[in-house]
């Protein structure tokens, strides 16, 4: 079964790279450039997993994570961040507190991203089968 993934990041180069890598792994991936656009896509079709950046225009990632967990509690969330004025770890700790299932600090390799995505979806599949 093809798993559906939403990727949210305002960096269009990175967005394209993540989309390409995950699509090549066989996932059905769609992209959004901020939290608002991501939530609109989720409302049109739920996803198994959301990869979201934290610092973005319009609706930023932490707020997006809260909203996703309220509306789609079963959707897995992988938060990614390079931080800004603070270390990425600080944003990512907050993301975990707010409902992200896993975090990945930038910079990361696409193989690391793929490994995290597969791990989260495997866990979700095991829970669904239990």
């Amino acid at each position: 079964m093809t798993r559906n993934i939403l990727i949210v990041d305002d960096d269009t180069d990175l967005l394209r790279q993540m989309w390409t890598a995950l699509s090549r792994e066989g996932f059905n991936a769609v992209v959004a450039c901020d939290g608002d656009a991501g939530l609109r896509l989720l409302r049109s079709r739920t996803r198994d997993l959301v990869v979201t950046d934290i610092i973005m225009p319009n609706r930023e990632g932490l707020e997006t994570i809260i909203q996703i967990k309220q509306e789609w509690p079963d959707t897995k969330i992988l938060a990614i961040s390079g931080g800004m004025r603070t270390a990425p770890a600080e944003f990512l700790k907050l993301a975990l507190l707010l409902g992200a299932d896993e975090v990945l600090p930038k910079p990361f390799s696409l193989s690391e991203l793929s490994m995290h995505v597969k791990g989260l979806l495997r866990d979700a599949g095991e829970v669904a089968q239990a």
Partner: protein
Amino acid sequence: MNADDPLARHALNNLLGKMMGAAELALMDVEAPGVRAELELIVRLAKEAALLVAASATPRSDRPGP
């Protein structure tokens, strides 16, 4: 560039991540061993540079000497 500046580190991390990604995506399509070796080197060097950027975030007193 001041490596102690968090905004500069953020910008560097973004660049390194995309360099790594570009090389990894190219590796998916390239079979020539020589080209693959260079692309793999780019990935490895970008990872090493990311470690240096992370180390620059460590307070000077905590950094390994000299």
